């Protein structure tokens, strides 16, 4: 017997397959639309035509597009995403080397954002209309209006250059050296997490206000429990929709890390992506986008699962 949650997750996983297929076809097709011949990217425009033709044949570029696509997918599921047009390194190896960095950065942003948003949302909702609420509301509005790259640059100016407290660029893995790792991740984490903190603060505040107005809380109060417990009760329910937003934002954190890596010169997947775009290394671009996509889809499934798990009202069907 599978539980309802398991059945739900299996259904969602089955849904993910066509989405991934669709996305990979879209990326594959789009990239083939790009003017520019990979053989020329590899050998230079003045290479002899015979040599160019040989490279094209070797890369399978003369095959019909559907054949090329099937070949690509067949290799991809075996972990081979092809070799860079620019320096011939394995795409999957390059991604594997960069992925942990990006995930650490994303996790840092996630931690920063929740440790701001949860207290800010709670304080804002429970002090409705007071100055604390004003601070929370102002943060909610300003946080979504400040572009992350500019916040990063300002933090760099202030804490990196002016006060000279934290490193201005680079990355040390927290696994190699926890203290240095945290010092390097602090500013990038704040830069990445602030916008999400603002979104979650706003959401948590309005959900909690809605929840605090409900009648069932009076029943809870009548049982003679303290206000703090009432709040705990309301918070638990208010969190259900917030989880969806948090999950969606996790995908956006992964997207935001592309920008933040550039601001702080962090050698993650985002840098790999930008470098691939700038050097027209489309096979690398394709691989990186595909890996990002897989992560987004996985996160979305996890979020749906969490939502399903948290919300007792949802039966098996949605």
């Amino acid at each position, binding site marked *: 017997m599978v539980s309802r949650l398991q059945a739900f997750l299996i259904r969602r996983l089955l849904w993910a397959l066509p989405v991934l297929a669709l996305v990979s076809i879209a990326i594959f097709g*789009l990239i083939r639309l790009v003017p520019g011949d990979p053989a020329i990217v590899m050998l230079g425009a003045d290479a002899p035509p015979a040599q160019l033709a040989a490279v094209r044949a070797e890369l399978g570029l003369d095959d019909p597009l559907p054949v090329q696509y099937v070949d690509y997918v067949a290799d991809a599921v075996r972990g081979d995403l092809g070799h860079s047009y620019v320096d011939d390194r394995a795409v999957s190896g390059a991604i594997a080397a960069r992925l942990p960095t990006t995930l650490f950065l994303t996790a840092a942003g996630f931690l920063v954002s929740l440790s701001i948003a949860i207290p800010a949302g709670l304080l804002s909702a429970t002090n409705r209309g007071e100055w604390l609420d004003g601070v929370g509301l102002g943060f909610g*509005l300003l946080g*979504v*209006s400040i572009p992350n790259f500019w916040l990063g640059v300002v933090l760099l*100016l202030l804490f990196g250059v002016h006060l000279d407290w934290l490193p201005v660029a680079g990355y040390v893995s927290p696994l190699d050296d926890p203290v240095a790792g945290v010092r390097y991740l602090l500013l990038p984490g704040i830069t990445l997490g602030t916008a999400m903190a603002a979104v979650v603060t706003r959401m948590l505040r309005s959900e909690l206000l809605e929840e605090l107005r409900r009648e069932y809380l009076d029943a809870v109060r009548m049982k003679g429990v303290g206000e703090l417990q009432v709040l705990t009760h309301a918070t638990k329910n208010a969190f259900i929709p917030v989880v969806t937003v948090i999950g969606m934002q996790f995908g956006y954190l992964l*997207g935001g890390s592309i*920008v933040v890596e550039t601001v702080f010169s962090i050698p993650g997947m985002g840098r790999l992506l*930008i470098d691939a775009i700038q050097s027209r290394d489309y096979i690398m671009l394709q691989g990186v986008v595909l890996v990002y996509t897989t992560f987004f889809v996985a996160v979305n499934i996890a979020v749906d699962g969490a939502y399903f798990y948290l919300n007792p009202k949802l039966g098996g069907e949605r």
Partner: protein
Amino acid sequence: MTDATDADGTTAEPARPQSPLARRARAFGRRFRRNRLAVGGLLVTAGFVLLAVLAPVLAPYDPAVVNVPARLQGPSLAHPFGTDRYGRDLFSRVLYGARIALQVAVATPLVAGAVGVPIGLVAGYVGGRVDDVLMRLMDSIFAFPAILLGLTLVAVFGQSLTNIVVALGIVYIPQFARVTRGSAVSVVEEEHVRVARSLGASHARIVLVHVLPFCLSAILVQATVTAALAIVLESSLSFLGVGVPSPTPSWGSILRVGKGYVDSGEWWYSVFPGMAIVVAVLGFNLLGDGLRDVLDPRTDPNR
């Protein structure tokens, strides 16, 4: 229908039957003026538009004129925002940058709406399987973070202002579709739509005349929010070097170069263009929040 002619000038009669749309429009004006967020946002946005339009008149220097001896000067009376690495006046460049931001803020919602609104209308009006498939498709696009989709599309289309606006437009199609569908679904159930249907109006007429106008308020809010998002996304792409090509002073591209001067202490190079982005985006966000409160009668003014 021959009633409800508003132009007959009978002001003494207070409660003449108006068309539901005119009634909503009037209530909207009243609520808007009372909403501080909306008025504040409108003022900031209007200021931004004015500065962008009048940039050629207001800018003290030609934004492209190089003056190498005056390079990297801090803010002064002659150069309120300082000068850049070629001695160009940053104040003038930021003013001209507002023109790019304005184009992006206007064109992106238009592109996204031109595709997203019809999709939303069809999904909401037809319902059933069509609705399911269209919305699943929109969700799949929406699952992508805007920045990744924008980067990939610009990498493929090539860098030009037009291509960037098209790419940004595609990024925000799902949000327009979703919002339009949301209102269409509830409007379709309303009395006046059922009346029109029973009178034998065609589907196209029902959708365009009886459904679309009632979705406009939600679409307007979405357009305002999208304008803010589009300014941020365009400047992010330009900051990454994948945005508007370099001689054009986009705020993001100025910041991209300015970031290189952070270590050496030329703070004005990155601080002022960034402040311009924040003010413009804040204006649209305030306006969007305000409009949402004003247009949704359920929301509480203190919220």
